[in-house]
């Protein structure tokens, strides 16, 4: 909502300066977004084209040297056919904002030539609707170097009106709030002196459930629509509205002044019987914005028998619109259902001023007053005879009463307010009060549809009194143990554990490109976003890897070949609320050591990735002996180089999966650099009780007796996994065998192709004594026997 200081003064008698006004507006909840820069008009200068030559690289463009007065010259590329030597026109320099499209002028290079600014057409300057070529100025009226716009246009104060304050979409509403805040006195409403000399020939019939609550109208005969007078044009221009004609401008003026939308019909183009009804499905309506809209059954229509004259409260029809040749008009001032307006306008994508205002509520009592006032202005500007005013539908406003106790103020705000102060504030805002000590019976004014109950009254009081008057109560420090629950602690621990292993944490959108996401999870169609921001962010992600790999690729394109990145966040498995999982996904590509004099280059491999996982889970408090790896694969991983991490047994809970990404996937993603590894931790699967280190830790037992080490190498069938071998051997005697390490795996050579050699190092130690040679020998025999029996493995000789 834009206003100017002088317009405000139409309703407010005040001595307050403009900055006092704006700071008060901020303090009472009418947020000032900007105050128009007064000097912005100085960027449009009257200029003379000294020379207009053909652009060296474009036939239709001209290279103009322009004289800006006081010896200043500029070079501008211009496409207008009328640009010629000696022409007096308007030059907009860099920084200027072209009124028509709000386009900011910059120095640009047009086909190899720098252009410093722009020569403007009349329509670009918003001084004409249409224009051909750049504006041509009269040498006798304009001087080179002068500002084209006379700077008597006031700066507009742009106020962000919250949706509850329809009443402040009127200059008068803002003036009322300011007066309540002590910044002046609200002037009484102008009295309308209008003679009704004609009988209104129109008959209005409002159908039930039409979406129209009330409809008032009058007929004006014999008008001469003209260009608005200077005062009206400047008023509209000052707040950024384009003057059109006296009749339209007068209705727009009332709309801004009082928040009372009006509509004028060319009454010669319509029949006298008007029916207001609901639209029918698939009805078509041609509006004055030149669009044809296909309606559903929810719109409120102003109609003749066979023709739609307007979409009530949203936009008028094209066929009945007012033009410069209009002679007789029907003036409408009505009240429409805000919900119906909101629905249909949203559906059709229409954002009119009228719609905006009806949605936020207009004052019932202004309906007829606004009609009279506009009729008076139109008559003054365009002549004509005015009929009587007829109002159909709802006859009067039903007043709302609220019982309010001053105690409520204290309870909500913290400190109390005196009865006298409260009464003054409310009265100035237009509330009527009957009081009995601290209890008020408050009548809400017709323009405040947002006030329903006691807390609303509290807000009015504290808003006008000032939020700075609320006394601050310092919080007390509280010692409480449950800031985070166990799950939340777990998530936060995991994030830092992964980062501590050299991964960079990222945060990516929860949505992604469906084409990429389906590479990881098929059938995620039902996760489509109905109104995505773009086609490559059109689906909720069902895999954490979709975005990570997209971004990994972007980083490769930035020439980062070695990357470790991870994200902790949601993935989705269904469109319903709660159908989401909390996961950590990580991806890695490239070398661990690179061009080092100490170490050879080392590419990341699957065992690095496995170790990250193990380290993190051990850090989390899960004992290594309870973690099991199964060689099984998600489809997006390399089937031979991927696995899953299980808790307690190979049929236990799946905690994580990891692997090298399947080259097929990378091909689809158009990533040429390989291999890429990834892992995913399923946070929701991790049982919280397993992470309590204090509880899960085994008893502290160390042995001071001598430990011995023995090495064995076995020839064993390829199919047996190392983990299985180790757990089997440990179970021979887990009191004596402290640890088994694999120190060599070998295939080929003289070993048959279905076998492998695996070399194991055993640490053997007793808690209770030094083992004798005999005991060690017995254990060694057992190891060999077990290997033979279980895996048909033989000692390598």
């Amino acid at each position, binding site marked *: 909502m834009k206003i100017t200081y002088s317009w405000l003064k139409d309703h407010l008698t005040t001595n307050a300066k403009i900055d006092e006004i704006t700071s008060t507006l901020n303090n009472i909840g009418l947020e000032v977004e900007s105050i128009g820069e007064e000097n912005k008009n100085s960027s449009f200068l009257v200029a003379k084209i000294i020379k207009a030559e053909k652009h060296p690289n474009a036939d239709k463009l001209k290279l103009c040297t322009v004289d800006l007065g006081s010896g200043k010259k500029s070079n501008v590329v211009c496409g207008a056919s009328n640009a010629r030597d000696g022409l007096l026109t308007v030059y907009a320099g860099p920084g200027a904002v072209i009124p028509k499209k709000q386009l900011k002028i910059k120095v640009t290079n047009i086909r190899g030539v720098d252009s410093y600014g722009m020569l403007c057409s009349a329509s670009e300057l918003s001084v004409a609707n249409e224009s051909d070529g750049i504006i041509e100025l009269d040498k006798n009226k304009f001087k080179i170097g002068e500002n084209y716009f006379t700077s008597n246009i006031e700066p507009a104060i742009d106020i962000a009106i919250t949706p509850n304050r329809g009443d402040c979409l009127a200059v008068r509403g803002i003036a009322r709030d300011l007066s309540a805040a002590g910044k002046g006195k609200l002037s009484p409403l102008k009295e309308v002196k209008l003679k009704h000399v004609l009988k209104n020939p129109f008959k209005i019939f409002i159908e039930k459930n039409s979406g129209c609550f009330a409809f008032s109208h009058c007929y004006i005969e014999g008008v001469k629509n003209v260009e608005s007078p200077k005062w009206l044009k400047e008023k509209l221009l000052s707040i950024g509205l384009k003057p059109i004609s006296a009749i339209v401008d007068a209705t727009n003026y009332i709309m801004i002044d009082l928040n009372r939308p009006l509509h004028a019909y060319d009454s010669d183009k319509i029949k006298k019987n008007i029916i207001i009804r609901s639209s029918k499905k698939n009805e078509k309506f041609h509006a004055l914005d030149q669009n044809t809209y296909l309606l559903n059954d929810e719109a409120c229509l102003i109609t003749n028998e066979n023709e739609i004259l307007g979409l009530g409260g949203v936009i008028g029809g094209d066929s009945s619109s007012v033009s410069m040749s209009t002679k007789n008009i029907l003036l409408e001032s009505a009240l429409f259902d805000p919900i119906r307006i*909101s629905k249909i306008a949203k559906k059709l994508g229409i954002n009119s001023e009228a719609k905006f205002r009806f949605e936020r509520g207009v004052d019932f009592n202004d309906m007829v007053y606004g009609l009279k006032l506009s009729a008076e202005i139109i008559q003054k500007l365009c002549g004509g005879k005015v009929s009587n005013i007829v109002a159909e539908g709802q006859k009067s406003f039903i007043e709302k009463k609220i019982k309010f106790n001053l105690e409520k103020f204290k309870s909500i705000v913290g400190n109390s307010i005196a009865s006298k102060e409260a009464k003054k504030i409310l009265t100035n805002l237009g509330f009527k009060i009957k009081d009995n000590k601290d209890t008020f019976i408050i009548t809400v004014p017709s323009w405040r549809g947002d006030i329903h109950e006691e807390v609303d009254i509290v807000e009015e009081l504290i808003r006008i009194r000032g939020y700075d008057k609320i006394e601050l109560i310092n919080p007390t420090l509280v010692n*409480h143990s449950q800031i985070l629950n166990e799950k*939340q602690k777990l998530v936060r621990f995991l994030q830092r554990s992964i980062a501590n292993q*050299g991964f960079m944490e990222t945060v990516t*959108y929860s949505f992604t490109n469906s084409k990429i996401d389906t590479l990881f999870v098929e059938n995620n169609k039902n996760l489509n976003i109905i109104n995505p921001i773009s086609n490559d962010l059109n689906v909720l992600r069902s895999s954490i890897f979709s975005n990570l790999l997209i971004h990994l690729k972007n980083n490769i394109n930035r020439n980062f070949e070695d990357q*470790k990145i991870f994200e902790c966040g949601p993935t989705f498995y269904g469109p319903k609320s709660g159908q989401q999982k909390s996961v950590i996904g990580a991806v890695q590509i490239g070398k661990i050591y690179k061009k080092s004099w100490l170490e050879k280059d080392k590419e990341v491999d699957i065992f690095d990735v496995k170790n990250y996982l193990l380290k993190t889970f051990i850090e989390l408090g899960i004992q290594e002996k309870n973690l099991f790896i199964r060689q099984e694969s998600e489809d997006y991983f390399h089937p031979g180089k991927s696995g899953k991490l299980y808790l307690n047994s190979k049929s236990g809970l799946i905690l994580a999966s990891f692997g090298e990404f399947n080259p097929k996937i990378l091909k689809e993603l158009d990533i040429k650099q390989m291999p890429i590894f990834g892992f995913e931790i399923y946070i929701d699967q991790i049982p919280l009780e397993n992470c309590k280190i204090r509880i899960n830790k085994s008893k502290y037992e160390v042995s001071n007796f001598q430990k011995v080490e023995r090495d064995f190498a076995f020839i064993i069938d390829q199919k047996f996994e190392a983990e299985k071998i180790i757990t089997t051997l440990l179970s021979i005697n887990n009191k004596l065998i402290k640890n088994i390490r694999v120190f060599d795996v070998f295939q080929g050579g003289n070993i048959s192709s279905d076998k492998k050699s695996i070399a194991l190092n055993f640490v053997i130690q007793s808690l209770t004594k030094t083992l004798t040679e005999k005991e060690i020998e017995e254990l060694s025999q057992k190891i060999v026997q077990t290997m033979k029996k279980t895996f048909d493995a033989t000692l390598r000789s």
Partner: protein
Amino acid sequence: MDEILILGKEFKSKIDSADSTIKIEQIKSEAFGKKGKISELFKKVPTLQGDERKNFALSVNNLKDNINNLIISKLNQFEQKEINKKLSSDKVDITLPGRPISFGKIHPITQVIDEVTAIFGEIGFSVAEGPDVENEYNNFTALNTPPHHPARDMHDTFYLDENKETLLRTHTSPVQIRTMLSSKPPFKIIAPGRTYRCDSDQTHTPMFHQVEGLHIDKNINMGHLKGVLDYFIKKFFEVDKIKMRFRPSHFPFTEPSAEVDIGYELKDGRVVIGEGNKWLEILGCGMVHPNVLKNCKINTSIYQGYAFGIGIDRLAMLKYGINDLRSFFETDVRWLEHFGFDPLDIPSNYRGYSR
């Protein structure tokens, strides 16, 4: 006796002139070996009597000790020399680079959520969470924003179905509803998390982060709200004084509602929070609307309280001098490296909220 003195001199000069461990070993066996000269002297002892025997034995022992000490000290000398020689030949160019150091980083969003949690945790708030996909009721209707309320237009909502029943939450406020419906008052929670609006330009991203606050109890008023926010902002920006302005505003789910601005100034192109004379809007808040409490089956004659919503990304930008919101979500490794945090920097009251 002269014999002993002469022998002593003889060995001393031999030891002095010895130039290798081998020579010393030779001297050692010459002196103390089976047929060594000093060993021979010891053999003489039993042949003597009385004082003579006593004196002789003492002298031979002294000689033995002296020679022994000389040998040990000479051997030590050689050992030292050997070590020194080894050390000087063992030198490496310590200025050569070691193995590459790789650092992991924590994203600024995570870090700021942890900071915010630590600060509010100290004054009695617990962390609550809710799903990213919400139903229309929790996101709007229960928050006193009925269908077709103009306030819904201010949230450009992503929908997941044509009937607009499921959506991506446009704010963290539905966590208020979930919290209040799932338990009984009093409530004192913060809810940090992802939020979504169908908006993308220089200063908006379709996903961003908020932290919701909710405190419902007996006798909680706007003074408490002001106090908590004042405390938070001072702690978060680590300043003792802060200029804070409460401006009346409108949110359907609070009444009265306020927006909060903090004072700042620009120093060398950096935003400095504190007492400057410019204002920056950083959060919205208010007293929870009675309709919201009623929707959550809370007795409004006993309980009332406040709620607030703060933009986390905004806080991070202000505190850490990040200019571009979009960069938060672009995973540019250079950006992550620059603005990320060391994983060991866990914000806490005793080690500091930030370094």
